[in-house]
């Protein structure tokens, strides 16, 4: 432990206090059984056995993973297109658009979800638009309180997490490199395919990772716009803590979610750090 500056020790202490200790405590909870609504301090693997044997937990888990995957793929395409559009604007415009995109990140998450509820509801913006363009004869109620509503809401709310890393990656491509490609005879499509896309892909992978991790653990959006159909793993965890008062089972479910998140992060880390970047 020689050579550690006092500042580094303070930082480690803060990390331990606010991140490592809470994580360790809920990890510890996941090994405790509950008898007659009371936690018994005798470690067991019952919670994990329960987790893996219960088929409804399993389907909820798989449904949630699929949901997070769908949102990630959809946002990958939408986010890349948005970032590319922003990047192609003149610099002054670019900054305005990036700021406009980042502003929602400063807003309360619940307010954003309620806003989406307003957009998707029977009297909402989306229905008004459908009616105005003659795409529907009467308001569509199927836009809210189902899994699709969760998909749309999560896509919209998580879009900045996809767009911003791609913007950063695109911003790092120097104009000279693009000029070099044109100078060597590349068409715009060839330049995109062989230069722009590979250089910005690491950013897109980071964005997809953010989206997947955030979507897979979310419980507020499914709770508020998902209805019965939109029951996700996050809501399951929430119900164990908030409704069933079975903290140890909730902790065990969270551990599974944490493992998935760590796996996704490590894969994304590998993919987004290609050999040429070192």
């Amino acid at each position, binding site marked *: 432990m020689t050579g550690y500056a006092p500042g580094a020790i303070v930082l480690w202490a803060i990390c331990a206090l606010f991140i490592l200790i809470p994580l360790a405590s809920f990890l510890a909870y996941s090994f405790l059984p509950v008898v007659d609504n009371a936690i018994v301090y005798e470690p067991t693997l019952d919670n994990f056995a329960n987790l893996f044997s219960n088929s409804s937990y399993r389907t909820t888990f798989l449904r949630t993973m699929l949901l997070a995957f769908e949102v990630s793929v959809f946002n990958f395409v939408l986010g890349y297109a948005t970032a590319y559009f922003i990047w192609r604007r003149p610099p002054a415009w670019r900054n305005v658009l990036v700021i406009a995109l980042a502003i929602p990140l400063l807003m309360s998450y619940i307010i954003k979800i309620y806003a989406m509820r307003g957009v998707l509801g029977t009297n909402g913006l989306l229905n008004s638009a459908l009616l105005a363009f003659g795409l529907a004869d009467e308001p569509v109620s199927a836009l809210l309180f189902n899994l699709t509503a969760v998909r749309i809401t999560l896509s919209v709310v998580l879009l900045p997490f996809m767009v911003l890393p791609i913007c950063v990656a695109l911003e790092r491509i120097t104009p000279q490199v693009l000029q070099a490609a044109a100078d060597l005879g590349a068409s715009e499509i060839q330049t995109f395919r062989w230069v722009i896309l590979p250089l910005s892909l690491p950013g897109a992978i980071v964005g997809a990772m953010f989206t997947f991790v955030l979507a897979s653990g979310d419980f507020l959006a499914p709770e508020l716009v998902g209805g019965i159909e939109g029951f996700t793993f996050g809501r399951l965890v929430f119900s164990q803590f908030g409704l069933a008062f079975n903290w140890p089972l909730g902790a065990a479910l969270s551990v599974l979610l944490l493992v998935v998140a760590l796996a996704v992060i490590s894969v994304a880390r590998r993919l987004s750090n290609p050999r*040429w970047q070192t």
Partner: protein
Amino acid sequence: MAAPDADSRHEVAGDRTPLLRIRGLGVRFQDFEAIRPLDLDVLNGEFLTVLGPSGSGKTTLLRTIAGFQQPTAGRIEFDGRDIADLPINRRPFNTVFQDYALFPHMTVRENVAFGLRVRGIARATRDARVEDALGIVELEDLGNRYPTQLSGGQQQRTALARAMICEPRLILLDEPLAALDATLRRQMQKFLKVVQRQSGITFVFVTHDQSEAITVSDRICVMRSGRIEQIGTPRDLYYRPRSRFVAAFFGASNILEPCRIESTGEAVTMVSTPFGTMSVDGPLPQVREGLALAVRPEALVPASGDACNRIGCEVVSVSFVGSETITELRHPQTRHVLTMKTRSNPSARHPAVGSHLEVGFDAAACALVTGAQE
């Protein structure tokens, strides 16, 4: 030409037809004229350097030829064909960029292959040509490295190979050596010259370094404030500058002024200076106002019997600085100080300070210059 052996090094290789003809080319940014309408011919197979201080328009000129900058006036013809409206990717020549602009996600081999890949050249042909190009720039062993794993000189050579791979007849080089240290720079200058000579590709090279320009070029085009100040061989520009600016850009000169033309003969012009009447070879400047006679310090020698231009001086100081000896001389009538630079000689006796010394220079080793220095 000054010397009888005419310095064959600076003779233009290849034929003398212009590969690139620039006529009335101008570039204007709002109310700033980066390039005032100018004409320039780049000859087939030559190494032409565009030299100038920063802000002289040299890089803008190169970028306009490459197609990165739209001209506001004039035409650019390549091989007899107007290319002003041709998009960058259809122009039949390639560029080496100042910061190399290598593709960071591609290996050296992939970078070099890029031009062939976009043209859909078959893999086998492509690989063979890439190996050839890597051989020319001596990077065979580093083909699988990424640009971040290369030194500056290696990146430079990768950029050169990448620009050469499609066998263009013209390569534009935008201050390609600016980022290299002095030793490497000198190596690369020699290397560029050799590659240019052997490949026969016409090079248009931009730099602000006059010694670099003299080392590598067949011809130098000196630019200043968006205009071409003078074009010529390095020897021409050095010994026969047409303006005080060009004279000063290539190093120190003795400026004999004011000058007045007395008579013009077939080859020799007689001019009167405060130091006496001197004879000058070569063309007369169009402007006759503010004339001066510029003589390089090393063109000044202790006068022998047949020197046509002679000045009697008093020795002020003699400094031995290694390979050269610098003598300062005062002209007794005008109190003007001249500098003479001679090759040091271990057995030579220096003239004593205060003694009288007759110095002279050749009619071909001086030039009439005009204009302001800065």
